[in-house]
């Protein structure tokens, strides 16, 4: 962004969805409209390196017809979401698996994939 340039953003950290205005100044990005510090952090990241937490399901190979919900244990690069889904489409989990278990480590080198549900 050039100095003086403005961007309007909606913070996605919580359901409040604050309307943010980010303005580039000589001293870096100035953010207004946020009600908490996470909004400022979000605007900075969103305009430089946007990230998202990915949630999906994985097939449980030894339980017919069962799927376990999973998530990345931290946000990953937004532009890698589809690549991540492609990697995970071949991943199978073996039961028993419980909430919090790492089911696929280091997805694209960005985060571990952990189970968010339990299959006995």
């Amino acid at each position, binding site marked *: 962004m050039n100095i003086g340039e403005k961007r309007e953003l909606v*913070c996605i950290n*919580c359901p409040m*969805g604050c309307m943010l205005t980010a303005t580039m100044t000589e001293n870096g990005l100035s953010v207004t409209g946020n009600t908490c510090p996470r909004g400022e952090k979000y605007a900075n990241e969103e305009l430089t390196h946007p990230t998202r937490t990915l*949630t*999906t399901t994985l097939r449980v190979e030894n339980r017919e017809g069962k799927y376990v919900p999973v998530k990345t244990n931290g946000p990953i690069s937004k532009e890698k979401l589809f690549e991540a*889904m492609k990697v995970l489409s071949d991943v199978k989990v073996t039961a028993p698996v419980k909430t919090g278990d790492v089911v696929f480590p280091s997805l694209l080198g960005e985060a571990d994939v952990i189970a*968010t*549900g339990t299959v006995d």
Partner: protein
Amino acid sequence: MLKRDIVIVGGGPAGCAAAVAAFDAGTKDILIIERDEGLGGILRQCIHNGFGLHRFGEELTGPEYADRYKNMVIERNIDYMVKTMVLSIEDGKDGAKVVTAMNSENGVFAVEAKAVILCMGCRERSRGQLNIPGDRPAGIYTAGTAQRFINIKGEMPGKNVVILGSGDIGLIMARRMTLEGANVKVVCELMPYSGGLNRNIVQCLNDFNIPLKLSHTIAKIHGKDRVEGVTIAKVDERLRVIPEESEYVECDTILLSCGLIPENELTKSAGIALDNVTKGAVVNQDRETEKDGVYACGNVLHVHDLVDYVSEESDIAGKAAAKYVQNGCKDQETVKTLNVEKMGAVRYTVPQRIDVHENQEDVKVYFRVGAVLKDVSLVVRDGDNELMRIKKRKVAPGEMETVKIKGSVLASAERISVSVE
């Protein structure tokens, strides 16, 4: 006959939270009756994150949030039955309630309860209730049904998708189906504003360049055996289709995310009065319905934006039901009853009435407005006397608002009203 102090109908987030709250308030003889295979309710299929920020101070997925409450139920050894359907709630002897239920193991059976908490949740508005003209092919699902297919059964309902309604479930499913390889062509919203959260419009639609067409609807569904396409059209300010501004969109699947309706067949058949706006029971500040000892909380009472608020409301109902049982199945003496009047843009309030007791505690009133409004005030009055005024930058139908009315104020009040102006 089986006897319990409290029977809870439904083991979703409301039922679990109400059970935990009642147990912790000292009434421990509880039975939760759930029709699905396990506790957790609809959260089991809501695999996305964003739950629990208020309740647990961290961002959880639906199954994680459900697990926390399920574990609280199990830690307390609270009894629950799954794959069991409640058929009716009737008056028994001496103020007791008779809950009739059935399952494949016990057949039809009855439980006598001192108090009942209704936690049946809600259902999605279906095509039949929306009256969409056109053919009746396969490929039309509510967003929640599609969510169950994908997240629980591992089946994709279709490839080329048009979504009607921009409620949060519809937005979440737009992202979910896109990530699973479907082409979500457009989301149409009848109203000039979205019913979903802004954050979901950003992370579910904008992130994937899915267009959101406000003031648009599906004017006709085409297809013989399977959906082949839809006619989408702009609507005027009275929500009537403008035929000149319509276009044909090819698709094989339609998802409907057009609002939720509390599931109150049991409530109605028990002779309990419903509010015609919320479609849930009329309750007091304890979430007690007009029938003594019968409480309601969660989405069966009114549709909530966040499960965190469901848990909060269920705490109130659970505690109150426990107290009712401990008090010998009697309500605390009521000094007077105040009906909460709705003024200005306020569509409904919960509770609808406040039964004022001696040493009345503060009461939080939840309400929704009927339109998106900017720079408004939330005003509480006793007759013409203004008690409270809170300025808001923006209010919207999709966001529940609250005001807390002090107990001391209620003690002297004669006519309470809540207004947005």
